[in-house]
Structure formats: C-alpha cells, structure tokens
C-alpha cells in the first residue's frame, strides 16, 4: 500500500493552507526527515518532512494550490518494492483530496465545540443543569430538607482564635499526617496567636516555621499533600496568599483532574481574610469570590467559634484542597462551642442563624454579625428578617437559600468584598435560576465599595459595608 502524505496543520486552529512548493518530484527517492514540501497559511510557513522512506509515487496536489484542507492527501510514497501500479486503486478511493472549500463551511471543526455552550444554550442556565454539583436544579427538588445538624448538650465559651487552635490540635493528635506550616506559626506562636501552644505539644517536625517564601512553601506543602500528608498552610493573611495563588489554583485545585483522579490534595490553606483595621489597600481585601470561582477547591468562611472549630476539623479531614477564610477582627470574639471532641460540622451546609418571614439576609464571616444586628433593628421596625450564615461558600448551600427565599420572597446578600462578580452576584444568579417566580423584588447586594481600601479612618469606614447598609437594603426590597 502506498503511504499517504497528508496536509499537516501548523497550529491546532488551522483548517486549511496553501501548498506553496514541492521540493521533490515524482520518482525521487526520499528518506525520512527529507523536506519534501512547503506549506503556508496567512500566519506562517512550514516545511513538510517525510516520515517514511521510499519513492515519490504521485503528487496529488499541485504546487501553488490554495485552500488545501488539513489531512487531505497531498502525495503518495511508494515503499520499497512497490511500483506505480500500486497507485491505481488508491487514487480513486481518496479522490476528495482537492481544495476543501465546501468542507470548510460544513465543519469548521474548532469553532463547533463552544457553540454548544453559547449559542444553543436554552434559557436554562448554560452551565447549570448538568455539571453544577452544588445546585440541585429547580425549586421543587430544592425542597428536600437538608440533613439536620447533630445536637450537642454541653458547651464551653471560646474565642474564635481558641476554637481554631483546638481544631488543629485535636486533628493533629488524631492523625500523624497533619502538620502546620507557615510564617511565625511555631516559635512566635502565630502572628495572630492562632497556633499558640502547638509547637510545645507537637514539636518542630509538625509545626514548621517557614521563611517568607509563600509561593515556595505553598508549592512544597501541595507536593507533600500529593503524597498523602495533610498540610495546614497558614498564611499570615490572605493578602500574602496572592504570592502563592498559582500553586493554590494551578497545582492544588487542578491536579486531581489533570491526573485523571490519581493525585488528590488533602490540604487546608487558612488565615485571616478580609478587611482588618486601618492597614491600607494591600492588606485589606476579601478573597472569597476569587477562590470560589475555581473548580477543584472548597471554600469555607466561618463566623462563630463553633463554625470555626467544626468546619476547620471537617476541612482537615476532607480529602480535597480547602481555602479556609478566617477574619482577624473575629479572632477575639467569644461564642458557645459544643464541648465534644467529635464535634464536626458538615462542609456545604449553611445555618439559619435567625428565622424570619419577610426578607432573607445571606451573609458569611464577619458580615453575619452585622446581619444579625441589622435583623434586630429591622424587627423593631416590624420587618422579620431571616439571617443565613453561609459557612461554606463553595459548594454553596443552594437549598437553604432557595427555601428561605421561597418563604420570604426577598433577598439581601452581604459581603465585604467588591460587588463585581462577587458572592452576591452568584447568589443572585442562583436564586434567579431556581426561584425566579418567588421573588417579589430584585435581589439587593450589600458589598464593600468599589475602591481599594483607603487608609484614612473616615474613608475606611465609608468603604466597608455596615449594619445600616443591610437595614436599608432590607427595607428597600420590602418596599418600606
């Protein structure tokens, strides 16, 4: 059988090109590696090398032909011992090798794929129906009750800081593979004292002070997690995780997928996120929507000490990479925490902190406290607000939000971050997709102002979302 020489593609998107020049003629003997032709597109020129050896049996496409389709037969090479008669049957069977004008209109291969998710997308959320694992479609199925949290009888009062420390200590006691790494986590006891006492109990093999090399130690910890260790990486604040975001997303979040399920990454990235007080633009920012955007990560943002403890323990046990967003201003606040070593909270489950009937307020992290205070103010004004503490941002607890909105018909979302492509935007979309008919007012978003964080006290106060903004937004959606 003569060997077919096909029109090669210069790039993945090339569909056709010009056969500019033949360097051989019929009857020439060629060896693999010989340049036999030159092809061109409007962007580039490339030499065609022979891959096989033999004799040029037939040149099918003449020099200078334009619009030659990729993969069309341009020549035949006769193998040793074959003569021209071998060409008799092939030429007939693959005659369609000529210019490919009609084929091109029929199948512009590389453009066909995206069409499915854009042009042809029905009014259903383009990405919603099939792949989105965090959203059960449509209001009806959303009615399935979420599983109830275990109830506890004995409690102790703890700060968020202590709860986080205890969560780590308990998990480290239970699992030798868990270790903590970060700047000032050991000898200094944590820049914000969250790892206080861990060095004493677990030693410097498991509580590791690093140099200031975020991308380096994040990559290292991720590599260790590929091997089954369970690192807890503390970022002094999430602002500095921007140095390391490449490994969080490109390595930790994607490797399971890229390896076809072989390499998991049981790692927790934790530290304070969001605005601190008066530290200016480079040290005051909410990263919730940055990480929540990315498949392959789970994103948690606790509010209370119980959230912090139960969710951090769950995060450490989870086999996936988790971004755990704490808040510096919350560290010193005290809450009741179940007094039980087995206390763990489920990831992906929001909590209704206050029940209400007139408006749903969704918040996470420090904004939950502000939402609860706003709800009190609203109650005095005769508006019954339901406050949902998201606790996990991704996977988002769509059920709890939708069920609440079906009851109240009004929604206010709250976050410290910027509004553009924020968590509120996602929630508004989800509610529109699943409970459009239940909404009596457009969803209102309370967010940080669309500016880098200013340092001046007066401007900083104006840049951050406050209790009063939530009250105003709730009244607005209630048309009051």
């Amino acid at each position, binding site marked *: 059988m003569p060997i077919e020489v096909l029109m090669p593609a210069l790039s993945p998107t090339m569909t056709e090109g010009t056969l500019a020049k033949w360097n051989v003629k019929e009857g020439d003997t060629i060896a693999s590696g010989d340049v036999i032709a030159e092809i061109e597109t409007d962007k580039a020129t490339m030499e065609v090398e022979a891959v096989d050896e033999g004799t040029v049996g037939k040149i099918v496409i003449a020099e200078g032909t334009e619009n030659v389709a990729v993969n069309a037969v341009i020549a035949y090479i006769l193998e040793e011992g074959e003569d021209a008669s071998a060409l008799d049957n092939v030429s007939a069977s693959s005659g369609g090798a000529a210019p490919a004008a009609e084929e091109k209109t029929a199948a512009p291969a590389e453009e066909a794929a995206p069409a499915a998710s854009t042009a042809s997308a029905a009014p259903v959320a383009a990405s919603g129906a099939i792949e989105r694992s965090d959203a059960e479609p449509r209001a009806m199925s959303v009615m399935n009750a979420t599983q109830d949290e275990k109830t506890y009888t004995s409690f102790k009062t703890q700060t968020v800081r202590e709860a986080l420390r205890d969560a780590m200590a308990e998990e480290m006691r239970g699992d030798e593979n868990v270790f903590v790494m970060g*700047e*000032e986590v050991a*000898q*200094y006891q944590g*820049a914000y004292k969250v790892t206080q006492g861990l060095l004493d109990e677990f030693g410097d093999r498991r509580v590791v*002070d690093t*140099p*200031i*090399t*975020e*991308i*380096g130690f994040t990559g290292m910890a991720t590599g260790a997690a590929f091997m089954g260790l369970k690192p807890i990486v503390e970022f002094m604040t999430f*602002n*500095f995780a*921007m*140095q390391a975001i490449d490994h969080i997303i490109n390595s930790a979040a994607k490797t399971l997928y890229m390896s076809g399920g072989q390499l998991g990454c049981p790692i927790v990235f934790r530290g304070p996120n969001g605005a*601190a*007080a*008066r*530290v*200016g*633009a*480079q*040290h005051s920012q909410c990263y919730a929507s940055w990480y929540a955007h990315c498949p392959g990560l789970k994103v948690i943002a606790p509010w209370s000490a119980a959230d912090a403890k139960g969710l951090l323990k769950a995060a450490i046990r989870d086999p996936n990479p988790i971004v755990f967003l704490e808040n510096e201003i919350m560290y010193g606040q005290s809450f009741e925490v179940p007094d039980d070593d087995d206390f763990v909270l489920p990831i992906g489950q929001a909590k209704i902190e206050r029940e209400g009937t007139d408006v749903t307020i969704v918040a996470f992290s420090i904004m939950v406290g502000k939402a609860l205070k706003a709800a009190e103010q609203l109650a005095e004004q005769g508006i019954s607000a339901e406050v949902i503490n998201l606790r996990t941002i991704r996977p988002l607890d769509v059920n709890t939000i939708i069920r609440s909105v079906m009851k109240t018909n009004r929604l206010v979302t709250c976050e410290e971050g910027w509004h553009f492509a924020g968590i509120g935007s996602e929630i508004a979309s989800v509610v529109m997709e699943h409970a459009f008919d239940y909404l009596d007012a457009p969803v209102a978003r309370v967010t940080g*102002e*669309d*500016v*880098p964080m*200013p*340092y*001046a*006290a*007066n*401007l900083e106060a*104006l*840049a951050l979302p406050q209790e009063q903004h939530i009250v105003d937004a709730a009244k607005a959606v209630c048309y009051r």
Partner: protein
Amino acid sequence: MATTKRKRATTRADNQASSDDLLKYYREMLLIRRFEEKAGQLYGMGLIGGFCHLYIGQEAVVVGMQSAITGDDGVITSYRDHGHMLACGMDAGGVMAELTGREGGYSRGKGGSMHMFSKEKNFYGGHGIVGGQVPLGTGIAFNYKYRGEDRVCLTYLGDGAVNQGQVYEAFNMAALWQLPVVYCIENNQYAMGTSTQRHSSSPDLYQRGMAYGIPGEQVDGMDVLAVKEAGERAVAHCREGKGPYILELKTYRYRGHSMSDPAKYRTKDELDKMRKEHDPIDMVKKLLIDGNIIDEAGLKDIDKEVKAEVAKAAEFAQNSPEPDVSELFTDILIDA
C-alpha cells in the same frame, strides 16, 4: 565583571568625611530618630492606626546611601519607609500627616504608613508585600537604561524579603540586562520574629547574587561613613554600565517589628549592646566632638532644631483635616 565576594567590613578609618558632611549626617539621622519616636507616640495616642513600622536603629543605612546618590536617582523600599522618605528630602509634615491619615499626607490619607510616594523626590514607595518592591525597583532601573538616562535606582529590601522568589527573578534580569540598580539589603537580623539564622540557609546575604554574577559586599550598616563609601562604589559600578550591585547593610532595629510586636524573640542584652556600642547617631556624635567640629552646646542647638521640626510635623499631622469623602472614589482609574 567576575563575581566579587568581598567581605570587607568597611570601617570609618577608611574614610575622611568633611565636617559639613558629618554635621549633615548627624542632623538627618537625628531627624529620622525623633520623627519615629514621635510617630510611636502618636500611635500610642490612637492618632495613627494599623501597622506602623519604625526605623529606629537603622538610620545610618538610608542617610549613608542617600549621600551616595543624587536627587535624580530613584529610591524604592518596603513598608518600613519613613526614614527613606525623610532621607529623600520629603517633608516631615507630609509624611506624618499620611501616618495620621489626613488630607495633607503624601497620599492624601489614602495610603497610610506603608504606602507613600513622591514623584518629585523620586521616591516610589512604600510597598506592603514583602519582596514586591524588588522587581518594581528593577523596572525603574530598566526605565532609566531604556531612556538612556544616567540614573540609578536604590532598591531596599529586608533580610526576610531576600528569601522571596521574585527577588531572584529580578536579580537575573537585572544582571542579564545590566540594569543600574543597587539592591540594598537592610539586614536588621530579624524578619518579624524570625532571626536570619532561622530563615536563611546561608547568613551571608551579600552573596545572594553570586549565581548571577552580581557583585556583593557586606557593610557595617550602623556606620554611616562605611555605608556612604560602599554606596558610592555600588553606584559608580551602575553608572559605568556594569549592571546591578548588592550591598548587605548589617543593621539592627531597636523597636519591635511593628507597634504591636513585643519582640520577645530577642534578649534585652542583645538590644542594649547594640544601642550602647553601635548606635549610628552616637558614633557620628563622637566623631564630631573628638574632631572638635562642634561642641556639646552646638549639638544641643541641632537637637533643638530637629525637635522643633518634628513637633511642627506632628502638629500639622493632627490639624490637617481628614480627606474629603469624595476622595473615596477618586484615583481609581485615569479618565481616558
């Protein structure tokens, strides 16, 4: 040029500074010290918020380096930036008013202690992300070379910053393209609570450019004359078109990392020894007195002047109004 790894502890003996120079260094270092003491005080009064990183103890570094360049050269540093700004000739009142977050501050109150700039004085910040200023300063040097200007950029970084990967990416490009940048490593021996021994595999930070062929020297950063002399050598190297240079300035910060750091990771003896035996201001003071350049009364007059300047700055910083609320939404993008 081959990699030099001169470990010469340059000392005062090598130097002859003029009386005027010595007096100038004394005054400039004293201004930084008094300014920082005042900032610490205002912080304690709640007039300055957030992080505030004082420069006390390290004054000889910026004053010495500044005397090795001209006003046309650039300077960029981290968040520990007050001293650099004063050394660049920025107005103490404008710096202090930025610390208090007022309209009269260099960033009109929007930057804060860590983020100040003065295009006029060629001071380019004021950066909060450890190591971030290193490629930026290298880019400023790139700009100088690109435009064919005879200017150098002093790029300051801490001993902790030296471990950031982007520092080496910058070193490589600076050496590759022979950029006029002097990397001034202020080795104050601690990155927050972590001592150099605990964060760096090799304690000799001046050698960090060896792999790129960048010459480096270690300098007594408590000795302003030694700093100036080494600075002049480094700057001359850049001006001759030979590319980057590294100076490791061994120094010490007397205060905690920031106002909220009790600095329990080091002994009081260590600190006292530094203060007593290596204080950069005392050193120059002794030269002035021993050389009969000025007497105690003369020094007192300088002290008074400096104190008055700082008091004026503090007053301005307290009386300057907060920025107008409309400032919240300005300077985000330039209208195009």
